[in-house]
């Protein structure tokens, strides 16, 4: 599976990264090399081997669904790039 320019464009859009033309060309070469290295996994037979997503054998961990007050909501809004009152402000979403 060699990486194509089309793949890079597709993945960049999925990842929401604009990327300049130079970055795209660079990504093609570098990701291609890394993926080539990763092909080494092909030699391992994993028939009947279950995947490990997590090493600690924990099942669902439950807690009570109870709301707690946050001490300083203003400190959250203070990090906003743009705001109005107690709202985060963004560009118009629906035309």
């Amino acid at each position: 599976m060699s990486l194509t320019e089309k793949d890079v464009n597709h993945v960049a859009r999925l990842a929401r990264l604009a990327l300049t033309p130079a970055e795209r060309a660079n990504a093609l070469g570098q990701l291609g090399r890394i993926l080539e290295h990763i092909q080494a996994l092909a030699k391992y037979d994993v028939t009947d081997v279950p995947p490990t997503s997590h090493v600690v054998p924990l099942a669902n961990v439950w807690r009570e669904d109870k709301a707690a007050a946050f001490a300083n909501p203003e400190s959250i809004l203070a990090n906003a790039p743009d705001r109005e009152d107690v709202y985060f402000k963004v560009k118009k979403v629906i035309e």
Partner: protein
Amino acid sequence: MSAVHGLTAREIARRVRARELKAVDVARAFLDRAKALDPKFKVFLCLTEEAALAQARGVDDRIARGEDPGPLAGVPVAIKDNLCVTGTRTTCASKILENFTANYDATVIEKLRAAGAVFLGKTNLDEFAMGSSTENSAYFTTRNPWDPSRVPGGSSGGSAAAVAARLAPVSLGSDTGGSIRQPAALCGVVGLKPTYGRVSRFGLVAFASSLDQIGPFSTDVADAALVLGVIAGPDPKDSTSAPVPVPDFSKALARGVKGLRVGLPREYFIDGMDPAVEKAVREAVKTLESLGAQVVEISLPHTDAGLSVYYILAPSEASANLARFDGVRYGHRSPRAENLLQQYELSRDEGFGPEVKRRILLGTYALSSGYYDAYYLKAQKVRTLIKRDFDKAFESVDIIATPTSPTAAFKAGEKSNDPLQMYLSDVFTISCNLAGVPGLSLPCGFTAENLPVGLQLLGKPFDEETLLAAAAAYEKATAWVRTPPLAV
């Protein structure tokens, strides 16, 4: 009396509790030292002088009132800048978070605070902890205190260098594929990655959630045990923190290694590793043997798959975790955007550095439709094989000894243009995260160029005690804990 910066965390806390030292004087001494030496080593992204002095005064006030501020009374701690400290800028060494101020404490920070610690400031790292040299920091490269033309390792390079240069007695880092142990080795200090789940990750900016773990840097093993004891334990705010009791790690230090079975995996002595590193590590193993340990050659047959598995799983998890940086609620927002999609795409492109983008792309690719089975799922299955290697090895040995890194500290710029070469410097530390076991690096010698070499010890899950006991016994029998000449 020796200068304050030469004291261990234990000794500082003892003196502060015994009213022999004032916490505020300790804080001032370390802040002054940091201000004088940091231009040379570039450890700190920011020093939080006022907050540190206020915290120290709080400790002194409690002592004056007859209260005990805790086991880290007045101990200055340097914090990797991917951990949230209320009211302090938390940048992850990224431009995307340049103006982000944390509004809550990470659980480890809360615990350190409650134990009387004093936060000196935030240390440099590879952006979002992705890297092995701190050269991926969007701000500057930290310098190795043993040779400023070399890197301190990474990603927790700032925290490792801070302790090596005695700008802080202890510090916190995070380790996803070796980011505590590798810089500890390259800087000649002790670095501990606890068992996955031992320490709450709440308030650590997530990189790869199934691999990330927070741990301490220190000048000696006993200080690592002390700090681990403070930060460990289950946390309702992190559902992956394990409901396992926290033992008294400091008590385990005197156990020694008599009868301890130490495994030496043949796959960890590879072509291309620095002969000086191999020699130091083999001698260290002989030392353990002379102390009464029983050394057994073992095999971890899937070791060579570790790097490939890691560079699929970690970027995949990162691509999901870093989706939150979209310029909506915090972080950089591009002024060039004309609509919401552009706001996402341009803000992220302008805010993230090249290595972070590379990993996001790699992870997104591995998770994308049509490739998921071949990459992500396959890697998860091979991860199982790697974990089984460790399970099997630990049936016949108590700990595993390996080099921490194939080489000592490399020159700044030497690997920064070749991502794959850089990734290879993590070859010995990665499997530990994939298997979730605890790992510790401690100094075990020096190369001809006077650069420190690290010995890595790996333990059974939730058996940090044996790991610390073996490390403490080795440390006691040797004299590799040294201060770099430049930082005296």
